[in-house]
């Protein structure tokens, strides 16, 4: 079961109002994968995630998640959206936010029950935010908010966890802690995360893909300098991010 294929994209094209965002993307993700997808802003990373979540539909090509349509597969998927989208002034507590992840198990017209609350408490313990359950979500630091959003994805007991720029607004220390947490979770579920922060991603994930309209992926950590060049277009930017050094080092390790 470990190597079961859970996401399959076959020659997928996505375009918004004539602008091509994803170009002939092929991707296979397996049940034990911890995959990092990196690429520049506007390279289609979020679109790729939304495709897997069934929030965006391909122009052409085929996508299967857990052997069915992305919409039907949502019950197996936990989603941690981009932090910057939120209105953190919203009148809602940490616990209420995490409970939202239990919606599918609770259902229409029903109140969250004791089991939902217990699972919520456990998820908050897992991410280390248990004592802050009663706080308003906006009163937390960004790193803490990110952990709460992770807990909200975990309470649905997903088999695939999807994270969109999970550490983009988090300081370095919190970032490391967050990736350590994902490192523990990867034994229980597949993880796909996207980030423009090449340094952070390449250190922590097991497999790396590069995305800039086209996807470069060899089902491994291996990324060639040529592919990085093509992904990021601009070598200056690569050096600024410290990319070639880190990724090439990994490359050599594996050889």
């Amino acid at each position, binding site marked *: 079961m470990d190597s079961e294929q859970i996401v399959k994209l076959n020659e997928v094209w996505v375009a918004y109002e004539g602008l091509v965002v994803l170009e002939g993307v092929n991707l296979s993700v397996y049940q034990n994968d911890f995959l990092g997808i990196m690429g520049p802003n506007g390279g289609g990373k979020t679109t790729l995630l939304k495709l897997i979540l069934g929030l965006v539909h391909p122009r052409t090509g085929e996508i299967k998640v857990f052997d069915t349509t992305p919409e039907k597969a949502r019950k197996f998927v936990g989603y941690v959206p981009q932090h910057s989208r939120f209105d953190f002034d919203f009148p809602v507590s940490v616990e209420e936010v995490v409970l*939202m992840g239990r*919606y599918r198990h609770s259902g229409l*017209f029903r109140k969250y029950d004791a089991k939902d609350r217990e699972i919520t408490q456990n998820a908050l313990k897992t991410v280390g935010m248990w004592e802050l359950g009663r706080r308003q979500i906006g009163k937390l630091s960004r790193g803490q908010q990110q952990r709460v959003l992770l807990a909200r994805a975990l309470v649905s007991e997903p088999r695939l966890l999807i994270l969109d720029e999970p550490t983009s607004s988090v300081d370095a220390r919190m970032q490391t802690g967050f990736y350590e947490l994902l490192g523990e979770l990867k034994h229980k579920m597949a993880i796909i995360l996207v980030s423009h922060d090449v340094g952070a991603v390449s250190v922590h994930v097991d497999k790396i893909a590069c995305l800039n309209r086209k996807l470069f992926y060899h089902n491994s950590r291996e990324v060639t300098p040529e592919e990085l060049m093509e992904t990021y277009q601009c070598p200056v930017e690569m050096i600024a991010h410290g990319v070639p050094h880190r990724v090439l080092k990994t490359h050599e390790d594996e050889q």
Partner: protein
Amino acid sequence: MTELLQFDFMRNALVAGILASVVCGIIGPYVVVNRIVFISGGISHASFGGIGLGYLLGINPIWGAVFFSLASAFSIGGVSRWTSLRQDTAIGIMWAIGMALGVVFVGLSPGYAPDLFSYLFGNILTVPFTDVVAMMILAAIIILVVSVLYKEFLAFSFDEEFAVVAGVPVNKLYFLLLGLIALTVVVLIRIVGIILVIALLTIPAAISARFTHNLKKMMILSVLLGMVFTFCGLFLSAVLNLASGATIILVAGTAFLLSLSLKAEQVQSKKT
């Protein structure tokens, strides 16, 4: 005899004020946190078409307003969900067309439209008993729906995209919320009038938001504030001989300004 009449319309005014405060207090926070204040403004102005239609057909204008406000709510919702037309453009169009239809319908109706002014600016003292009954029915619907779907509305309002993935029927909820706003507008028309409705929807909720970070508490506080504003406004308008709807809004507006100064230090700390 006059004393009895006095008692009657005062009783109607009090009940109407309480009903208006309850629905405002429940729906207002949703309007504020979802940032759809101007959808609400569009719905309320468009409902004037229904008031005019009521006069023209010789039925209670309230039911015309129910029809028009629901129709405009669903049109604005449909346009913003399923077309590429900008939402504020759709709001502006519905807003003006509804008002224009109202003016034309009133012009076509035979005779003189007696309390037209009270639909525009509200007059809590002239609310007839039949309208109080209509308000009770609408308020009951609003309370029932929100109490049954509280967790759905919370998930939808906080993070719609996640709600979709979590299996919440967000499109249905969106239209349901717009429908509830439409009914709320109708309940409020008699109290503060079409033009002043958005103030009573937003001010109590905006003040409450400064003092609590829990949506339920925000609703309870908004209901209480709504009652205070309505009754203070009613009292002041009687004493000073001013229009009741406008006085209620000015009381609410003054309270909002006071609440700003009361918690000014918190606002500053938020900005840093």
